[in-house]
């Protein structure tokens, strides 16, 4: 049991961070929001070059067979930079479903899609009610799935809805072909929820960093506002929330139990939303503008916390697990 990243894993996170810092993510996100996925897809190609899209894919299909810990480390960095696109879907859930399907239906379409995803040539998305009533970014994804119970099939796009996160377009979908029974649905969705939790953690960290940077330079009443106790107290609470959400993410990556995945999702949603409110409050009106860019994280954090199982769903699941008589370790 290790609940902290190894030196190699920390190095991977740093590489990813450096790449994304140089990659003009805000511009790509703006284009994505306007329906132009080109710059965003270029970003995803760069992610594929670093192996991010291959993490959850078995080696025999061109993937890296990495651990869930590797996956949450990457996802945290993608959340940190508010990368647009169907991240839990493409990185975790769809590969897991496809990998399971290659076992039951060898030589089928699933194998081809796994190679495409590993190479970063395709994006994937899905609906899986009740956690995922909509397929995010189905207009940008080459592969759209519909999960219903343990049945998985391809789907076509229906009505589109907009999100408060301008980069997310949410599609209703309908079945577009035959379905297969997939034994990995539970694990695939849990892995997606966990990746979403890690994204939230990274986004929360970005919000705290932005608030701290602003508080150190913004002068009001003759001093940097970061020196005011009211600001310090609030940002310290944000730091505490993030500090104690992270171990739950790593623990869930080790166990992948429903209880631990749900606990991580709840804690990361709460910590990230608290960070969003504090960051907005510290920034004042400037943070409320599209131009400033803080809103990219503020809106994404709220959208992600409602997605992949809203907090109430995950809390209900934690209690169900706690009270079903299992041991409590």
């Amino acid at each position, binding site marked *: 049991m290790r609940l902290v990243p190894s030196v190699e894993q920390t190095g991977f996170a740093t590489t990813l961070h450096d790449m994304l810092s140089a990659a003009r993510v805000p511009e790509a996100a703006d284009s994505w929001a306007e329906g132009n996925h080109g710059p965003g897809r270029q970003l995803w190609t760069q992610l594929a070059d670093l192996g991010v899209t291959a993490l959850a894919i078995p080696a025999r299909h061109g993937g890296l067979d990495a651990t869930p810990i590797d996956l949450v480390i990457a996802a945290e960095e993608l959340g940190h930079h508010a990368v647009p696109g169907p991240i839990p879907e493409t990185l975790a859930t769809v590969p897991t479903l496809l990998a399971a399907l290659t076992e039951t239906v060898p030589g089928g379409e699933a194998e081809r899609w796994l190679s495409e995803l590993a190479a970063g040539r395709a994006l994937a998305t899905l609906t899986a009610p009740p956690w995922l009533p909509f397929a995010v970014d189905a207009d940008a994804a080459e592969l759209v799935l519909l999960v219903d119970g343990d049945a998985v099939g391809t789907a076509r796009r229906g009505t589109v809805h907009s999100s408060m996160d301008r980069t997310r377009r949410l599609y209703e979908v309908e079945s577009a072909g035959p379905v297969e029974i997939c034994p990995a649905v539970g694990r695939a969705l849990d892995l997606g929820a966990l990746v979403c939790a890690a994204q939230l953690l990274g986004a929360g960290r970005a919000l705290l960093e932005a608030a701290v940077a602003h508080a150190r330079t913004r002068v009001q009443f003759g001093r940097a506002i970061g020196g005011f106790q009211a600001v310090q107290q609030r940002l310290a609470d944000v730091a505490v929330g993030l500090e104690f959400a992270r171990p739950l993410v790593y623990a869930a990556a080790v166990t992948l139990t429903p209880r631990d995945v749900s606990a991580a999702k709840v804690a990361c949603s709460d910590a990230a939303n608290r960070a969003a409110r504090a960051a907005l409050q510290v920034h004042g009106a400037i943070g409320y503008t*599209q131009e400033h860019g803080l809103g990219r994280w503020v809106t994404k954090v709220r959208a992600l916390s409602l997605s992949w199982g809203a907090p109430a769903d995950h809390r209900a699941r934690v209690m169900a697990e706690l009270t079903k008589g299992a041991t409590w370790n």
Partner: protein
Amino acid sequence: MNLDLDPAALAFRDEVRGWLAANAPRDPLPSVDTPAGDAAHRAWEQRLAGAVLAVVSWPGRYGGRAAPPLHTLLFEEEYHAAGGPVRIGQNGLFLLAPTLLAHGTQEQRDRILPPMARADEVWAQAWSEPEAGSDLAAIRSRAHRTDGGWRLSGQKTWSSRATVADRAFGLFRSDPAAERHRGLTYLMFDLRAEGVTVRPIRQLDGNPGFAEIFLDDVFVPDADVIGTPGDGWRVAMSTAGHERGLTLRAPGRFVAAAHRLVSRWQEQPDPATRDRVVDAWIGAQAYRMHAFAALDAPPTEASLTKLFWSELDVSLHETALDVLGPHAETDPSWTGGYLFALAGPIYAGTNEIQRGLVAQRVLGLPR
């Protein structure tokens, strides 16, 4: 609750309810910050004014019916319960008008208030500046004395409605040697005058909301100074109280939102969110009862009120998002309300500043 209203109040409420039922738009108007929305909202205001409902508390000569404050509260309750449109003239109606009634000249009132009530003239506020967020006294925009008036230069920001409004009001530094609160003058100016540039600011969800105003040597006649030159801070403070307090955030708005939330909860009643929905309703009801009580009591420190409604608004909308769950993301009425609510603890003096004012002015803690 038996509000125990007198016959005049009951008659007034029935009139408003009936008129709104017959006249309020069924479908939402286009966004007020678009040309189409501008026109639709002005037309709506003219209908309100035609029914003498635009500004019920104002004297009749300016377009009101000199109704008592209770009637204003009742009007707001009915207006929000009926889902009435955003008041395009709200900056003028609720911020500038009280200042004019307190500090303006008779000529100013006669000239400015009637077209304001009919939305023939829509007003924007021009309080903030890039370097003076919550620190209003740090204002740098200048008013230079000139023949028969003043010349304004500088930059204002976070000006709501400025993209569609006709005129604006704000504070300008008329005595550059004076420090902070001194040497400021309260001025009104034409947004279409030479030297004025308005640049819209998009909000975090991509929707328009505020604007920047750039002023380059803009002439304003003496007739458009409110109060004494150099005395603008004191004049503005009476308006600031109105902004923080009731007028921009009528209890009826929160009561209506709480009722919508209860109804939405009832569609799929989840006991896990019940208590938070109840708390939102209790908060709205507390704010409403506080407003009714205030009719018979000495004025409350406006900071208390601003803290209450702004935090209530955020928690009410957070609760709504949790009630809606994954479907909240695609429901613009609640997500838009949520994002709007997030601005509440920031504008008109951040809540951190308001808490300091409560601590010092109400509780008597040291500065």
